[in-house]
């Protein structure tokens, strides 16, 4: 399974791409496979400042619904509007077209607590 080394990960199966104090967040290839065909990504927290581990959205697959947890504290400044019409992008391209939100981190040092690709691969094995 593909877990790019340049990304950070959470035990909740989200990935984080860090660029300065900006974090781009999505769910991992493992997560999308477990969920199955994703039909709806609901994110209504754009503009809100949330703490790490708070719920920022929900992903609905045909069979299941799953909450999305914010990996790092900060303001959600953007969501991937493209998922409104093409939620399957999360299945097909979880690290690319399937990205979900961008966060302006309030405490970038939280990134240090995230998992490396190797550590995450051990969990998601």
């Amino acid at each position, binding site marked *: 399974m593909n877990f790019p080394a340049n990304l950070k990960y959470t035990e909740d199966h989200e990935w984080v791409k860090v660029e300065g104090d900006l974090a781009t967040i999505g769910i991992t290839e493992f997560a999308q496979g477990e969920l*199955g065909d994703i039909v*709806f990504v*609901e994110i209504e927290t754009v503009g809100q400042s949330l703490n790490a581990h708070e719920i920022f959205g929900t992903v*609905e697959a*045909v069979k299941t619904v799953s909450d999305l947890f914010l990996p790092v504290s900060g303001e959600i400044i953007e969501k991937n509007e493209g998922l409104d019409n093409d939620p399957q992008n999360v299945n097909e391209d979880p690290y690319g077209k399937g990205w979900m939100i961008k966060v302006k981190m309030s405490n970038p040092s939280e990134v240090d607590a995230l998992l490396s690709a190797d550590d995450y691969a051990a969990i998601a094995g």
Partner: protein
Amino acid sequence: MSDSQTLKLVPLNDVHIAAGGKMVPFAGFNMPVQYSGLMPEHHAVRNNVGMFDVSHMGEFRLKGPGVLDLLQRVTSNDVSKLTDGKVQYSCLPNDTGGIVDDLLVYRFNENEYYLVVNAGNIDKDWVWISKHNTGGVEMLNMSDGMSLLAVQGPNAIKVLQKLTDVNLSEMEYYTFKTGMMAGKDHTIISNTGYTGAGGFEIYMMNEDAEHFWNTILEAGKEFGIIACGLGARDTLRLEKGFCLYGHDIDDETSPIEAGLGWITKFEKEFTNSAYHKAIKENKPSKKLVGFDLIERGIPRQYYKITDGKGNEIGEVTSGTQSPSLNKAIGMGYVKSEYSKPGTEIFIEIRGKELKAEVVKLPFL
């Protein structure tokens, strides 16, 4: 997975794993929920052909001169209407107003019937029917020895016709024949299914299951047959408005409330029939309805149904994104005054009341 140690395994368990089946616990069995993906599997069955292993289902053989009397007393439908080779959908009412299980009744001859029941209810059904078996009917639980493959979809008949001399196109819906298929005699070929896509269900002994599975896949190759899991089975049945035990019907729902009046025949007496007859005559206070979700979301079992002003008027029993209709659909019980098609109702999803509309079943 630690669960799998206590789960029952179908004879094809290893075949499913080798085929890439994602195995999940279902009704006490380790079952494939999907192989290539729910969507392609759903579309294969709706538009072409797919095969499900549903060997977790239970089969009882009932034999003896008192069998019709027993079945008339424990099932809601009129078994006397069956002739040899016919199948009937029915349910086992309990004595507290609900349903023990829904099932298929197969008539082999006037003294021999098979019952096909839900996997999760095998023990409960056996105890229930045994309790009512006061006339000495010989009962045999064949569940652990029989396998069941559902070959479903508009092209299922073309695949299976290659494997049998039984003229499948002459078989009517809800009839069965026993005959030679894939080189195995005494195979039960049943024109039934839970997908509304057409096709057949094939009953065989466990030791022949792998032979049938492989032979049918091979015969279906030219048509593009694929293995399908329980996930697609659920979306397919929901599009057709078929009830699923444990969701749309259970120990507490009346078949009348569930829209199963057509299998509830009051020309005869059965368990608690007076109670259900009274519900029918007085109009049920709640009804199972289908609905389309108008606003964006997916309804799920146990979500509240409201009037849009925060007042609860019912509960969702099944819901999904329909792969064929490409919209969110569901079923649930609502107070009868909200059951007319066209009525605006609301589904409470994550604290919000989302607009939905009662529609006629089936969805498709």
